[in-house]
């Protein structure tokens, strides 16, 4: 009997979505996604309450929000430590290094042939594994986390940037040559703009990697703040609502990080076909 409201809500949400999906407008599309998310949250809350699922296994969304509000200053220090210092700091350094390396590689076909297969290979490796080594080298504070992030984001961005710098076609290069353009000018005016869509692709992929690297590196040692530290200690104390609150913060931070990069991409590469379509 107790399952009836759950099934009822599920069927209701489903029917509503099937009805809404028929219109297929931007507005209803958003509504359908929102209803789905809301239904899942409500079902979660109801299941936890009706079946009295222990908090240790799965806290209800209301408990998570409560913990989020209660521990907001704690969460803010963790956010600054892990996301702003570790992830963002490392991401900026790694991206800058990868872009410079890509421009250097681009001048030498030999380096291209030698480094690209290795770069592709390394991009598929479980690089998170270097976290213990870097924590040993750079200490427990955020420097070691930033170092892990630098290594994790370097190769995906490098591979994308090198591909981007080669994305000019022969006609454009010939035009530059016929104007006797010096290397610096052709790099600035032709190759870098042509590489931007590829670069942003790499930058977007690596936003998630940066967060993962910064959080996982904290499992190998950290000062007494940071999201990875908080997650592992809160799990130890079985304070699951706090763990989930950290996850919510990480999720929101990850989505915002990605969205900001995507927004900059739209501004910087407005001329690219993939962006023009978005503008309708």
């Amino acid at each position, binding site marked *: 009997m107790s399952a009836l409201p759950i099934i009822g809500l599920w069927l209701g949400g489903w029917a509503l979505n099937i009805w809404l*999906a028929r219109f297929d407008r931007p507005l209803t599309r958003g509504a359908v996604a929102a209803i789905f998310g809301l239904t899942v949250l409500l079902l979660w809350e109801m299941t936890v309450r009706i079946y009295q699922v222990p908090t240790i296994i799965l806290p209800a969304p209301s408990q998570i929000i409560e913990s989020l509000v209660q521990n907001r200053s704690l969460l803010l220090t963790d956010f600054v430590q892990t996301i702003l210092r570790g992830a963002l700091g490392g991401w900026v350094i790694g991206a800058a290094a990868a872009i410079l390396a890509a421009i250097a590689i681009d001048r030498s076909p030999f380096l291209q042939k030698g480094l690209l297969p290795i770069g592709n290979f390394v991009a598929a490796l479980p690089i998170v594994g270097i976290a213990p080594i870097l924590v040993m*080298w750079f200490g427990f504070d955020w420097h070691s986390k930033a170092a892990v992030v630098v290594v994790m984001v370097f190769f995906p961005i490098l591979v994308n940037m090198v591909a981007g710098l080669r994305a000019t076609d022969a006609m454009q290069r010939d035009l530059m040559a016929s104007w006797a353009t010096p290397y610096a000018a052709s790099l600035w005016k032709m190759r870098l703009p042509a590489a931007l869509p590829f670069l942003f692709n790499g930058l977007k992929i690596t936003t998630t990697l940066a967060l*993962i690297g910064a959080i996982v590196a904290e499992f190998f040692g950290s000062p007494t703040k940071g999201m990875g530290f908080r997650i592992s200690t809160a799990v130890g104390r079985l304070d699951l609502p706090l763990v989930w609150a950290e996850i919510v913060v990480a999720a929101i931070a990850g989505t915002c990080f990605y969205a900001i990069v995507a927004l900059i991409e739209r501004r910087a590469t407005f001329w690219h076909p993939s962006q023009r379509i978005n503008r309708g």
Partner: protein
Amino acid sequence: MTDGTLPMPAIRSFRLPLAKAAPVVTVLLVIVAIWYAAAIGMNARWERDQAARAGTQIAPSQLVLRTLSQDRPVLPAPHQVAVGLYDGIAGQKITSRRSLVWHAWVTLSATLAGFAIGTAAGSALAIGIVHSRSMDQSVMPWAVASQTVPILAIAPMVIVVLSSMGITGLLPKALIAAWLSFFPVLVGMVKGLRTPDAMQLDQMRSWNASRAHVFWFLRLPASLPYLFASLKVAIAAALVGTIVAELPAGATAGLGARLLSGSYYGQTVQIWAALFTAAALAATLVAVVARVERITLRKMGMQA
């Protein structure tokens, strides 16, 4: 493939690798050289401290030799890692707890189980999404948004929670690996199943093909290149997921546990050996998927 075209690839395969390999080998040699230099530089401080504490001077040549043979170096030299690898792989019984083969097998089994679950679930959901508009609009935005969430970071928590429910062993790790390989497969399959264009779909309709026919004879074959591309991402992600899932305290088996115990006890050679084993495992898994991809696509008449 007709017989007439057979000699061509054979000739090509003799000539290309050398031209391709030379730059790669050069770069690799440079990396090894840098590595040795870094090992000497980073380990020298400890040797100098030791010498200063003993009140002796050490000659530069001896300093270099000693930095390359420390027990717990800051950065082990490549040959030390090689010895560690050889010792872990060939020097132990496979069933021994010190054997890297055994740890690699623990990691591999969970990775493959998770990869299978994740691929099956991702494909199933993709089929549902392609055939149901309401599912598409409900699930897809969340699936795409979830790619930006650092799911991997909560892996250790999932392990602890599941073990408090009495679920231990291979299954929790496989679940995390499955979760990580699920999304690449889902997104890739949805894209792949949608590649047939209106003309091809109309052609099927004019043959009065049922939905099942359209699926089996048009959508599924068309989706395979996309499926394989995402399978390569998925299997690498599954391996990373398994390794991170092996990190929480208490885990004693697997490459992740090897990394963690190495970092607790300062056994740097052990960390590097585990790291290289993981890298080799990842490369092998991706290569196997790529091989299956090439064979399958060639049999279907597509060029991989």
